[in-house]
C-alpha cells in the first residue's frame, strides 16, 4: 500500500528543473529534502498577508502570525506523538537542539567522571557537543559499536549503561541507514537511571514517530529534511526535564522578567526560544507536516522500504562485485539511505561524474568521521530516497555509476 509517486513528483516544482539538459534525479534527501508547492505557498502567503513579529504585538496581524506559528507547533507535536505542544522547542537545526541538551541538561547534571554513552554511528551533531563537554567537565564517553550487518551490538548493553547518565543514539544512521532499536536501548538506559537523547533527524521524516513508544526523554529532528524550510530545528523533551533545566540562549522572548540584578525565565516552550524565531519557516513546517500527514507516514515508510529493497537488488545486479554497500542487508532493518563505494573511485569523483547526468548524490564523510574511521574508509558516496523518488531514479543512478566506472577505469588507451 503506497501512493502515486508521479502525482507526488508534480507537487515539487524543482523536479521540473533540467540540470545539464537532463531531468533532475535528486537522491540526496538525507542531506536535505525538496519542498512541495504547498510549503512554498504558505510561506509566501504569510509574508503577503499576515506577517508580523510574534508574541509581542497586540494588533491583528501580529496576533494572527502568533496564532499560526503556535498552530504549527501543535501540528508538529501531534506528528511525533508529543503529549503537549509546550514540549516542542524550536531552534535553528537539530545540531542546535542537541547542543541545547548538552548545554542546559548536560552542564546542569553532569560532573567529572560521569559517563555518557554514544554509538559509533552518530552524526557529528551528536558527538562534538559531548566531546566539548568532556573537555570542559572531564566526563567519560563510551561508544556502542555495531556488528557485521551494521547493526548496534547490544550484547554488552547492560554493562555499557552501568553508571551512565545519558545515552545518545541516532534512531536511523545517516550513513548506513540502520534503524536502531531505540526502545530496547532506552529501556536499558532507564533501568540504569540514565536519560535518553534520540537524534531522530533521519527518522522523523520517514517513519511514524511516537516519542512515547520510542521511550526517549529528548528527541531532536529538523524541518528541512521533512519537506519544510531550512532554519527550523525541533526538540521534543519531557516537560519535567525541560522545566528543571536552565535556559540555553538568553535574550528576548525567553524571559518573564528582567532586572539589572537578574532575570526570571518564562514558561515552556519559550524559555528555550530566545530572540525572534523563523516565523514563516515554522508555519511552513506546519504545512510540511500537513503534507506528510495527508500522505500517511506508514505509506511513506512502505514506499521507501520498497525502493530500498529495489536498490539493494538492482545496484549489485548491474554493477557487480566492485560495488560495496555499507548498511544492513535487509530493507526491514534500514531506511532509504544507501552508502556505497565503487571500483575504488573516490566518492567525490563519483559524485562529479554523476552530476553530469543530473544525478545528485552526497559524497564525503557525511559528518560522521568516527564512523568512517570505524569502517576504514575516508569517504563514501550516498544515495538517499524520499517520497518523490521512484525506481527510474535508481536505474538512472545505476546507469550513471556504470558510466563513471568506464570514465575513470574503463578506457585507459586514450
Amino acid at each position, binding site marked *: 500500500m503506497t501512493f502515486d509517486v508521479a502525482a507526488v513528483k508534480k507537487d515539487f516544482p524543482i523536479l521540473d528543473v533540467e540540470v545539464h539538459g537532463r531531468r533532475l534525479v535528486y537522491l540526496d534527501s538525507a542531506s536535505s529534502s525538496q519542498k512541495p508547492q504547498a510549503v512554498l505557498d504558505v510561506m509566501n502567503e504569510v509574508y503577503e498577508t499576515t506577517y508580523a513579529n510574534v508574541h509581542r504585538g497586540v494588533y491583528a496581524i501580529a496576533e494572527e502570525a502568533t496564532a499560526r506559528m503556535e498552530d504549527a507547533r501543535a501540528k508538529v507535536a501531534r506528528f511525533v506523538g508529543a503529549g503537549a505542544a509546550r514540549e516542542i522547542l524550536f531552534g535553528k537545526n537539530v545540531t542546535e537542539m542537541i547542543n541545547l541538551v548538552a548545554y542546559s541538561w548536560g552542564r546542569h547534571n553532569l560532573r567529572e567522571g560521569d559517563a555518557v554513552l554514544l554509538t559509533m554511528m552518530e552524526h557529528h551533531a551528536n558527538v562534538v557537543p559531548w566531546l566539548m563537554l568532556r573537555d570542559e567537565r572531564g566526563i567519560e564517553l563510551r561508544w556502542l559499536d555495531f556488528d557485521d550487518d551494521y547493526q548496534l551490538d547490544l550484547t554488552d548493553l547492560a554493562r555499557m549503561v552501568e553508571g551512565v547518565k545519558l545515552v545518545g543514539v541516532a534512531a536511523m544512521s545517516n550513513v548506513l541507514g540502520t534503524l536502531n532499536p531505540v526502545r530496547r536501548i532506552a529501556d536499558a538506559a532507564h533501568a540504569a537511571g540514565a536519560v535518553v537523547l534520540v537524534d531522530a533527524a533521519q527518522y522523523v521524516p520517514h517513519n511514524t514517530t511516537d516519542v512515547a513508544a520510542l521511550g526517549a526523554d529528548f528527541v531532536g529532528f529538523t524541518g528541512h529534511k521533512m519537506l519544510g524550510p531550512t532554519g527550523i530545528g525541533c526538540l521534543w523533551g519531557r516537560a519535567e526535564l525541560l522545566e528543571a533545566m536552565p535556559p540555553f540562549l538568553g535574550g528576548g522572548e525567553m524571559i518573564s522578567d528582567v532586572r539589572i540584578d537578574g532575570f526570571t525565565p518564562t514558561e515552556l516552550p519559550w524559555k528555550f526560544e530566545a530572540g525572534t524565531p523563523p516565523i514563516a519557516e515554522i508555519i511552513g513546517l506546519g504545512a510540511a507536516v500537513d503534507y506528510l500527514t495527508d500522505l500517511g507516514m506508514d505509506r511513506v515508510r512502505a514506499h521507501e522500504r520498497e525502493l530500498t529493497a529495489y536498490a539493494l537488488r538492482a545496484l549489485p545486479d548491474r554493477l557487480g562485485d566492485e560495488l560495496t554497500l555499507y548498511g544492513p542487508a535487509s530493507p526491514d532493518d534500514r531506511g532509504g539511505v544507501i552508502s556505497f563505494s565503487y571500483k575504488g573511485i573516490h566518492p*567525490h569523483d563519483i559524485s562529479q*561524474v554523476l552530476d553530469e547526468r543530473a544525478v545528485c548524490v552526497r559524497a*564525503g564523510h557525511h559528518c560522521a568521521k568516527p564512523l568512517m574511521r570505524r569502517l576504514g574508509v575516508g569517504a563514501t558516496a550516498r544515495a538517499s530516497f524520499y517520497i518523490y523518488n521512484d525506481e527510474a531514479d535508481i536505474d538512472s543512478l545505476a546507469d550513471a555509476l556504470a558510466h563513471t566506472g568506464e570514465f575513470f577505469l574503463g578506457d585507459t588507451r586514450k
Partner: protein
Amino acid sequence: MPGLEDLYREIILDHYRNPRNRGELPAPPAQRVEGFNPLCGDEIVVYLLVEGDQVVDVKITGQGCSISQSSASMMSAAVKGKTVEEARALIRAFKGMMSIHESRLEGDDGEPEPVDPEIKLGDLAALQGVVKFPVRIKCATLSWNTLAQGLDEAASA
C-alpha cells in the same frame, strides 16, 4: 557548463592512477606535515626533506579524490630537487592559477599575490580546469598548502 574533460584531463588521471613519490620518509630528519580537507575528508601527509636550501626529497601518503591526489603527485614531482625559493615560487604560481576563484569564494577582495611570469607550471597547468568547478579548488590546493606549511616548519626547525 564546463565539461568533465575540462576537469579530468588525461595527465590528471595518469597521476591519479600512477601517483609519483608515494611513500614515507623518516621524520626527522624529514618534516612530516598533515593536511585535511574538512569538507570531504581528504587527508594528505607530506614528507619533506630539506637540506640547506634544497628540497632533497618529497614523499606523499594519504587518501583523497583524483584531483587532490593527482595535484599532490604533480606537486611532489615539481618541487623535488628544487631550491626552497623555487618551491615557494611554484606554490605562489600554482595558487595564483587557482586564486582568483579561491579569493572570491572566501570573500577576500585583496589583490592576489604577484606571480613571477618566469615560473613554468608545466603539467600542473592541466589543473587549471579545476577553477571552473569551484568546490573542487580546495582539493587541488590541499597538498600545496600542506607543502607551504612543511617549508615553514623546515625553515624554523
